[in-house]
């Protein structure tokens, strides 16, 4: 897929060309949004907003990595949503029970060809632990950890995404990993055996 050609076509008004780019990056965009916001509905809204914003500002794309550029839109949309939450925090009308919601609404229980229930439980526990610990991080650390360790993005791309120098990325990533390690040790019993930490090496 020639991204630059698709961008050029989109600039000429070819919406289908832009939608091909959307399809290529929507999973990553949604996953980053979800890891940042810890809310699927909000992540969905933010992802859609980010792609609309990307289309509007496509003329500002000056080449380079389109993935980094579009993920910057996603990150900025996530920051906007986090700021909005800080300004107007919302409280659910009914007490939130993650366990109950998981059992009642998870479509994974209905699938036949999915992994075994034990594996699903294990994956769900891992996901919950990771998400919990990611939420404990400051926003600027979380975005770096999600992009590098969860999404496997390159340092340079992340530097472009958040507009910080490479040294800042390295520093934030190291501190994020340190905090995550400390946090994940609290979920030691819940993690799969292969991921269990030593529990030693406290700084």
């Amino acid at each position, binding site marked *: 897929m020639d991204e630059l050609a698709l961008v050029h076509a989109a600039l000429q008004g070819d*919406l289908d060309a*832009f*939608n091909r780019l*959307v*399809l290529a990056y*929507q*999973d990553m*965009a*949604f*996953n980053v949004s*979800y890891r940042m916001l810890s809310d*699927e509905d909000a*992540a*969905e809204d933010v*992802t*859609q907003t980010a*792609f*609309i914003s990307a*289309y*509007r500002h496509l*003329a500002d794309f000056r080449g380079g990595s389109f993935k980094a550029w579009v993920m910057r839109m996603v990150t900025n949309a996530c920051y906007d949503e986090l700021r909005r939450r800080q300004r107007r925090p919302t409280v659910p009308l009914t007490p939130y029970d993650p366990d109950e919601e998981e059992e009642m609404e998870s479509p994974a229980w209905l699938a036949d060809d999915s992994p075994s229930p034990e594996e699903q439980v294990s*994956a769900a526990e*891992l*996901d919950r*632990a*990771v*998400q919990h610990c990611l939420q404990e991080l400051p926003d600027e650390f979380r975005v770096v*950890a999600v992009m*590098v*360790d*969860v999404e*496997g993005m390159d*340092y340079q791309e992340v530097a472009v995404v958040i507009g910080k120098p490479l040294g800042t990325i*390295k*520093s934030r*990533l*190291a*501190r994020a*990993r*340190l905090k*995550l*390690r400390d946090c*994940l040790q609290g979920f030691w019993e819940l*993690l799969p055996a*292969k*991921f*269990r*930490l*030593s529990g*030693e*090496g*406290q*700084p």
Partner: protein
Amino acid sequence: MKTQITNREWQQLSDFLDARLSPREQADLEKRLADRADLRVCLEDLKQTRAVLKAAPHRRAPRNFTLRPEMAPARRKLWRGWVPTFSFASIAATFVAGVMLLGQFLPMASQAPMMASAPEAATKELSEPTPMIITWGNPSPVGMGMGGGGGPETSPGLSDGKMPVPTPVTPPTLLPAIPNQPDSPPDAVAPHTIEDNSGGGLILGLPAEAEQGQVITADPLPRDAEADHQSGGWQPWVTAGAFGLAILFAVLALRFRRR
């Protein structure tokens, strides 16, 4: 086993995991890893942490986020097309305001010594009676020292009323210069060859032919200064207006840029 490793070592371990160390730093860290068990434990913890994060389930997009034509903003170019215009206008207005501001202050700075003494001089001048100087086209009055003597002798307050006064006396500040006295025949005065180098010779010397019979008064406010004084009134307004426009255009540019 409790360990104490520095933040710098943590960052080196993190960079080491991603192969981001220089060969020299890597060799140095490997040497320390071989020597210190606490560093090795921490490195293993970091490896596990990274593995946990990588193993976290990836959420797939619950739906397609492709744009429909009605979702594609058609007004983008319209709004954004104004951004350069407003940006340029803001810069231009700032420049104009800056030039106006400099124009107001720079002449003041260069003329500051003169202007500093000007109010005192003006006050002193106003406190004293403005001498009225009358030049006579006829031979000097008898007993008046050939036209000399200055203002006090010819001022209305000291005049005994018997002296011929060629022109009515009005307050000096309101009296315009009278070009010529029609009733004073210029040919009645013999041409003089005396050259007065003192700037007109109005008091002691004989006036020039064209100046005979004129009432000369000191103009308290020269025409140019008055014009400058009057013209200086609009400069602050223009400067303030330019600054206001600069701010307005900058706000508009920023606003349309965000759309």
